[in-house]
C-alpha cells in the first residue's frame, strides 16, 4: 500500500535534510519521488510530466540560499508550483447585475450535482440572495424527488415540471415563473451524463445556447482518476463551463485531479463539497489546497472556522473566566456546542498540521461521544453546572438516569472536567489555549 502525497514528500525531505546539501543526484532522486507521489495522488500522467520538468528547471536555476535548508527550499518550491497551478487566486461566482442569475450544474453521474445544487442555494441565501432550484433531471428515477426532499429540509423552493418536458423548456418556464416574484437566482440541477453520450450532451448544449447561463459549474469527484481531465475537457468544449466544484473532499483522497484540471483547462475551481450536510460547502482556496496536498495542514481554515464559531464577546468572556478560574460546566457545555459548529472531530483533526505524521488522522473519532457528554451536562441543574463540587452520589445517579447513561460515564466526565480545570491553573496551558 502506498503512502499519500504528504507522507511521501515528508519522507523525501527528511532524507534530504539529513544530507545537508543538494547534489545533482539528490535532485534526480527527489524529482523521481515527487513524480511517483503525484501519480499515486491521481495527478494526470501528462500533467505530472510537465510539472516535473518545470520543477527541474527551477531546481537547477535556483541557487540554494545559505539561510534556508535545502529541504525547506524544496518544500517552498513545490508548494509554490502546486499553488501556481491550482490558480493562486480564488475565484468568485459570476453573478448577473440584472437578476435573475442563472447557474447551471453539470457533471458525470454520481458526482454530487443534486446535493451541491441545494448546498449552493443555501450558501447564496445566507449571503442575502433569494434562490430557487430548478429540477431538470428527467432521466434518473426519483431524481426530482431527491432534489425536492433535500431542498425542503433547508426550506428552499424547487421549480419542477415532472419528467415529460424537455430540460431546456423547464428552465425557460422557471425563468418566466420567477419574473414577477422575489427570486434573484435560479440554480438548475441537471441529469448526470457521460461526456460521450451525444444525445444527453446535446440536451446541455441546448440549454447553453438558448439560455446562456451566467455560471455553468462542473462537478468533479475529488476521488477521480486519470480520466477526469478527459471527461472535463469534453464538457468544457461542448458548453461554456466557467467553474469547477470539487466534491467529496471529506474523504482521504489527495485530490490530484484538482491539479490536473487546473493545468489542462482554463477553468478555476470555485467551491469544494466537504460532507453530506447542507452547510458542508466551502470556497476553494488554492494556497490551502496546496498546503493540504503537501501535508502542511489547513490551519487557515481551522482558524477561520473557530473565529466564525465564536464572537469577540464570547472570547473575551471565556478569557476572563479562565483567568479567574471560574470556568465551569456551563462553559464546557458551550465549548462542546461550538465544536460541533466547527465540524466533526475528523474534519478538525485533518486541518491540523502534521496530523498524518502523528497518525492522528488514522485514529477513530466518534462524534457521538460529544453528544453523550452534552446529554450528561444537559441533565444537570444550573446550580450543579456552576458548582460541580456539590454533585454527590445521589445527584450522580439522577444525572445518569436523566441522560440515559451509566453512572461511570458521569464520574468519568466529572473527573475529566476537574483535570481540565487543574490544567487551566497552570500558566503553560493557558498560553496554548486558543482563547488566550
Amino acid at each position, binding site marked *: 500500500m*502506498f503512502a499519500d502525497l504528504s507522507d511521501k514528500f515528508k519522507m523525501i525531505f527528511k532524507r534530504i535534510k539529513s544530507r545537508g546539501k543538494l547534489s545533482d543526484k539528490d535532485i534526480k532522486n527527489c524529482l523521481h519521488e515527487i513524480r511517483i507521489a503525484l501519480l499515486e495522488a491521481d495527478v494526470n500522467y501528462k500533467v505530472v510530466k510537465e510539472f516535473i520538468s518545470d520543477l527541474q528547471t527551477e531546481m537547477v536555476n535556483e541557487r540554494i540560499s545559505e539561510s534556508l535548508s535545502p529541504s525547506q527550499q524544496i518544500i517552498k518550491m513545490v508548494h509554490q508550483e502546486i499553488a501556481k497551478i491550482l490558480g493562486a487566486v480564488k475565484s468568485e461566482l459570476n453573478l448577473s447585475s440584472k437578476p435573475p442569475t442563472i447557474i447551471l450544474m453539470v457533471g*458525470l453521474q454520481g458526482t454530487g450535482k443534486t446535493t451541491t445544487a441545494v448546498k449552493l442555494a443555501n450558501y447564496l441565501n445566507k449571503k442575502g440572495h433569494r434562490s430557487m432550484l430548478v429540477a431538470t433531471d428527467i432521466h434518473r*428515477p426519483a431524481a426530482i424527488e431527491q432534489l425536492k426532499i433535500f431542498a425542503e429540509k433547508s426550506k428552499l423552493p424547487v421549480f419542477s415540471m415532472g419528467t415529460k418536458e424537455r430540460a431546456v423548456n423547464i428552465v425557460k418556464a422557471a425563468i418566466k415563473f420567477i419574473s414577477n416574484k422575489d427570486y434573484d437566482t435560479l440554480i438548475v440541477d441537471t441529469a448526470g451524463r457521460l*461526456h460521450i453520450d451525444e444525445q444527453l450532451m446535446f440536451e446541455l448544449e441546448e440549454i447553453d445556447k438558448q439560455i446562456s447561463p451566467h455560471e455553468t459549474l462542473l462537478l468533479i469527484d475529488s*476521488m477521480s482518476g*486519470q480520466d477526469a481531465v478527459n*471527461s472535463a475537457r469534453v464538457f468544457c468544449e461542448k458548453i461554456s463551463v466557467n467553474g469547477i466544484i470539487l466534491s*467529496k473532499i*471529506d474523504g482521504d483522497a489527495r485530490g490530484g485531479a484538482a491539479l490536473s484540471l487546473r493545468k489542462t483547462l482554463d477553468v478555476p475551481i470555485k467551491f469544494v463539497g466537504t460532507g453530506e450536510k447542507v452547510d458542508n460547502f466551502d470556497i476553494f482556496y488554492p494556497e490551502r489546497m496546496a498546503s493540504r496536498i503537501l501535508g502542511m495542514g489547513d490551519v487557515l481554515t481551522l482558524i477561520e472556522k473557530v473565529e466564525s464559531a465564536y464572537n469577540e464577546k464570547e472570547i473575551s468572556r471565556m478569557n476572563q473566566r479562565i483567568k479567574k478560574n471560574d470556568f465551569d460546566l456551563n462553559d464546557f457545555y458551550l465549548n462542546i456546542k461550538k465544536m460541533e459548529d466547527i465540524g466533526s472531530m*475528523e474534519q478538525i483533526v485533518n486541518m491540523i498540521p502534521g496530523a498524518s505524521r502523528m497518525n492522528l488522522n488514522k485514529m477513530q473519532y466518534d462524534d457521538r461521544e460529544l453528544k453523550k457528554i452534552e446529554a450528561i451536562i444537559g441533565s444537570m441543574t444550573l446550580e450543579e453546572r456552576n458548582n460541580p463540587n456539590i454533585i454527590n452520589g445521589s445527584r450522580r445517579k439522577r444525572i445518569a438516569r436523566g441522560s440515559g447513561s451509566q453512572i461511570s460515564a458521569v464520574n468519568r466526565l466529572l473527573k475529566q472536567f476537574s483535570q481540565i480545570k487543574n490544567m487551566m491553573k497552570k500558566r503553560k496551558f493557558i498560553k496554548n489555549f486558543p482563547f488566550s
Partner: protein
Amino acid sequence: MKITHILNHFKQGLTKSRNNLKAKLDLLIKNSKSKEIFLEQLEELLILSDIGVSATQEIIHHFEKINFKEYEKNDFIYFKTQLKKILFDMLDHSSPGIEAKKDQLNIIMIVGVNGSGKTSAAGKMAYKYKNEDHQLLLVPADTFRAAAIKQLDIMANRAGVEIIKSSENADPASVVFDGVNAAKARKKNMLIIDTAGRLHTKVNLMNELKKIKKVIRNEAQNNYSLEILQTIDATMGQNGIFQAKSFNEALGVTGIILTKLDGTAKGGIIVAIKKELNIPVKFVSIGEKLDNLLLFESDKFVNALLD
C-alpha cells in the same frame, strides 16, 4: 440473453476505451525504436488506465528483463500478447457472478461510497436474477439519501420484482431485519439489499454497516449465503484501493461491481485492488438500462481492452 448478445454488449460498452487503447498500443508497437521509448510509452498507457504505480512498475519490470535487440520491429506483436497475459494473470480467474442456489436464501448486500452506483446496480441485479427464475425481494436500506427509496422502488417496478416498504430516516438495520424476515415468510430465495453511500473514512457510518451485517446473520440463521458486493466507479483513481480496503476490513467484501464502464475511464483500479487485497470483480455495469449489468470475465476484459 444469448452469449453472443452479451459479448456484443460488453464490447459496445468498451468500444471507446478499447479504440483508445488499441490505437495507442499499435502506435507504440510501430514507433518503438528503442527499449527506453517503449517502456516509457507502456508506462504512460498503464498509468492512464488507473491501474496504479505499483502494478505498472510490476509490469514494466517484466519487460525490462527482455533483450530488445533480439527482436525485429514486427516482433513487438509478441509484447502485446505478453502484456495481455500479464494483465490476465493479475486478474481473478474464479467464476464470475455469484452462485445463487434455489434451495437457500441468497443474500446480497451492496455497499460503496456515495455516487458509485449502488442503487442502480441493485435494480439491475434484481432484474438479472429475476430473469433467471429466482424468487426475489429488494430491500431499500438507504434511508439517508433523499428519495433513494423511491428510486429503488421505481427500478423494482420496472424489473417486476417485489420490494419491501421502508421510510426515510428509518434505522437501516431495522429495515434489513424486516427484509430478511419478509424473505423467509414469503419463501423467497434471493434478497438484495441496497445501502446508503458512505465515505470509507466515516467511522460511525462504517459501524452502521457492521450492525446491518450482524442483523443479517442473526435473522437469516441458517441455510443462507451472504455476498457483500462493493461498487467501484470505473472513473475512480487510486483512492479506490483505500475504499476497498476499508470496506473489506469492516465487512469482508466478497466481490466488486465495476460500474460506469461505458465511459472513457478504463477501470484499471480493479487490477490494483485484486493485487493488493485479492478481491475479485464479479460484475460490470455498462449503462443505465436494466440489462446493462454483465458478468465480469477477466479474459474478455483484457481482450476488449487491448484488441
